């Protein structure tokens, strides 16, 4: 009887503990409860339960802490201040996989808020144990650990360097090769986070042999995995030519283009980011992309989506066209310009418009043919109106002005220029500086057209015409003005030959 009573007490205590941690973990799921829990001092209560004799209580306590830390930065800071992290690190070594998972979740939740908190996680020696967890048998543990490492390395280069120094990269590369999709995804995103900071870290990732495995997974049917893989590759490729070439050498090329046709928008976006990062480095890489038909795919991709998804594609066209005349011509014959002009007119956001304007400027600045190709799609008036519009941002105005100047300096296509004359201040600025442009302007009959415009004297247009006329010698202006031949004939009529 007495033994039973004693057992009863223990049983009740255990039951109460389990119930408590479970309830707290459940309550912490809902944001509205969190403040109440915090005020009730839940963290100091959960802390001793992390050292409980019953593993499930420990796990659930860790889970509850993770959820609390996930909610906001203050709670995460409170957890760091309460010295809970070293406790977790200490107990993580000899615990089972569920506990490891929960502890990794706490680390992740704490480190996601700010670099300082992530640094605190690193300082308490969590990296070593997380890296050991990457070698665990259980894919869930690996995934949780990789996720935590990803949140730590996301913040800045020092933290990433710490993760790399701990030797996480080769293990992450092994994780990519696991069959579980979720694990692959998390590992790819961690690699992307590590590689994004600086060329050295990207080199570390490349040295671990990540590129071939990443390149293989581009074809995987899972959209989210594809998304992360493409992002990792683009983060690697973005730093320098060598890395970009290494990415290209993994034979990603025709395969990446299928991602541009994907149904998922993120995949499309990351695919075009990857293409852009490769194209921006050197003319050779751009040429390679053009030869593989990448430009056409990107243009199709731009046409099939909206908003910020098409932004990298637009920039990629600009980068390709900026490298050389021939590449710009390739963009033009791939029907890139009409697409860009559609983007320019239909996109609502200023930064996308600015990027489009820049790309158009890069395409049109090479020769008169390029400029004509841009001009015939009727983009110049749109650019001008954007430049003149009061609600355009400063950046957009600057970009519009620059690209218009670039295009107009080479432009000899009069029909396209004509509408501009009615309301164009910036293009006049071009003429006085460039004698070649002046000559073109005269020989192509632009000046004649100007003289034919009938403007009321004193109007703004008349002023502009006068300004243009001032750029040329008087005889030429007179020669091109409409009444000149009549005036000449009249002078012949009225001329009296001097009699001897």
């Amino acid at each position, binding site marked *: 009887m007495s033994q039973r009573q004693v057992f009863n007490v223990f049983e009740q205590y255990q039951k109460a503990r389990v119930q408590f941690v479970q309830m707290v973990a459940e309550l912490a799921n809902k944001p509205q409860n969190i403040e109440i829990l915090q005020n009730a001092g839940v963290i100091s209560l959960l802390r001793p339960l992390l050292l409980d004799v019953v593993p499930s209580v420990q796990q*659930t306590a860790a889970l509850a802490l993770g959820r609390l830390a996930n909610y906001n930065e203050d709670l995460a800071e409170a957890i760091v201040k309460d010295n809970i992290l070293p406790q977790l690190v200490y107990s993580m070594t000899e615990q089972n996989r569920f506990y490891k998972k929960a502890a990794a979740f706490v680390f992740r939740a704490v480190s996601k808020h700010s670099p300082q908190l992530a640094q605190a996680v690193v300082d308490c020696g969590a990296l070593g144990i997380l890296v050991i967890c990457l070698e665990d048998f259980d894919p869930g543990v690996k995934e949780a650990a990789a996720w935590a490492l990803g949140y730590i390395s996301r913040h800045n280069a020092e933290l990433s360097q710490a993760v790399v120094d701990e030797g996480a990269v080769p293990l992450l590369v092994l994780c990519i090769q696991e069959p579980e999709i979720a694990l692959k995804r998390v590992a790819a995103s961690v690699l992307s986070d590590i590689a994004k900071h600086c060329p050295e870290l990207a080199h570390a990732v490349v040295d671990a042999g990540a590129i071939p495995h990443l390149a293989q997974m581009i074809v995987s049917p899972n959209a989210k995995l594809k998304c992360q893989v493409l992002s990792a590759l683009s983060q690697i490729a973005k730093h320098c030519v060598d890395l970009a070439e290494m990415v290209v050498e993994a034979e990603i090329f025709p395969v990446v283009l299928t991602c541009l046709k994907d149904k998922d928008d993120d995949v499309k976006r990351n695919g075009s980011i990857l293409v852009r990062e490769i194209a921006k480095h050197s003319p050779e890489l751009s040429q390679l992309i053009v030869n593989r038909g990448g430009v056409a795919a990107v243009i199709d991709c731009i046409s099939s989506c909206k908003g910020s998804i098409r932004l990298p594609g637009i920039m990629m066209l600009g980068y390709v066209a900026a490298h050389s005349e021939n590449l710009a011509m390739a963009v033009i014959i791939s029907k890139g310009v009409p697409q860009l002009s559609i983007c320019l007119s239909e996109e609502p956001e200023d930064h996308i418009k600015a990027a489009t304007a820049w790309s158009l400027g890069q395409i049109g600045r090479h020769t008169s043919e390029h400029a004509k190709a841009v001009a015939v799609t009727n983009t110049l008036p749109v650019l001008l109106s954007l430049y003149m519009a009061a609600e355009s941002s400063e950046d957009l105005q600057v970009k519009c002005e620059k690209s218009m100047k670039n295009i107009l300096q080479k432009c000899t296509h009069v029909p396209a220029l004509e509408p501009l004359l009615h309301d164009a201040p910036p293009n006049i600025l071009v003429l006085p500086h460039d004698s070649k442009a002046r000559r073109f302007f005269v020989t192509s009959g632009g000046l004649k057209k100007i003289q034919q415009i009938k403007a009321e004297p004193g109007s703004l247009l008349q002023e502009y015409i006068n300004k243009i006329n001032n750029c040329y010698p008087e005889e030429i202006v007179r020669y091109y003005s409409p009444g000149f031949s009549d005036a000449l004939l009249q002078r012949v009529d009225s001329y009296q030959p001097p009699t001897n």
Partner: protein
Amino acid sequence: MATLARLQARSSFLRSQYYFRNRVVDVFRKKEYDAAVKIQSWFRGCQVRAYIRHLHKIAIIIQKWWRGFLGRKMYQLVVKVAYYTMKMNLYNAMAVRIQKVWRGYRIRKYCFNYFYLKEYLRAVSETNEAIRETLEEFAEMQEREEKKANLEREEKKRDYQARKMHYLLSTAQIPGIYNSPFRTEPDPWELQLQKAKPLVHPRPQVKQMYSPSLTDWLACTSAHSFPQSKFLPPITRKKCQGPFRDINEVLEQRYKPLEPTLRVAEPFNHLKLSREELRRKEWVQNVNDKMFLPFSSYHKNEKYIPSMHSSSKYGPDSCGEQHFRSENPKKWICDKDFQTVLPSFDLFSKYGKSYSKAGQII
């Protein structure tokens, strides 16, 4: 002497004459002197001038020749330089012409080759077309696959629905609702129902406090994350009403591991197995695979295989065993034999002789 005398006789006259004459001349003497000086100076001046003129003439001749010589020399040089300059100008012009043509050719051929560029652009547009087509196909294929998957999913759902509604199937006696007698033909659902297997009632699952499945545990999103630990007594389980034993005891009894008796636990062919085991162990420890067997008859049928060294056609070679040098002294490089530096071991020289008499050292 007469002469002398005559002269002496005339001497006074002569003296006066001399005086007289000198006095007369004295008047003109200065004038004459001056005139003579003048004449002399004029003459000498003429003479010297003529000489100088002569010298000048000669100097001019020399200078003329010398200057002519220098001039000709200089002229040759100038001509050479002019010729050289002209030549260089010509060469430069020609080089420019060659360079012009070559550069134009090269740039047209390799950099701005219009036809090549045209060809390249055509090729690029072709590639673009091809890529567009391929991507189009790819997208179509994907769409088709997705459609197929959707259809399958729907089919499955319909099947499940049919299985669930299997009780609406018409029987021989009662037509079901899909098999109305007022219709000419039954509803397609009727056929579906006929094909479907009736769904069995799922057994009501015992509600567990913890979800045992952990595979879907990701991001700690589900509320019930952890399974009950095996080692813990199930405190959530309610005690049954009635005069039953304690649940722990019952569970212990229920999940007691199998405890076989000694008779069952031990195999019946234990001896054989242990022998087998012993043999295996011995085999592992053996260095030689061939068993050493003491009986001479065991090896009787085995043929002796001589070693390659001794079975040579040319007889065994004793070099390296008994001697280390050619036995023919003519083949030695020097005619002296090797000298022993260290004294030999006595014991070794008695080798083979010393132990002859039943172990006694002689």
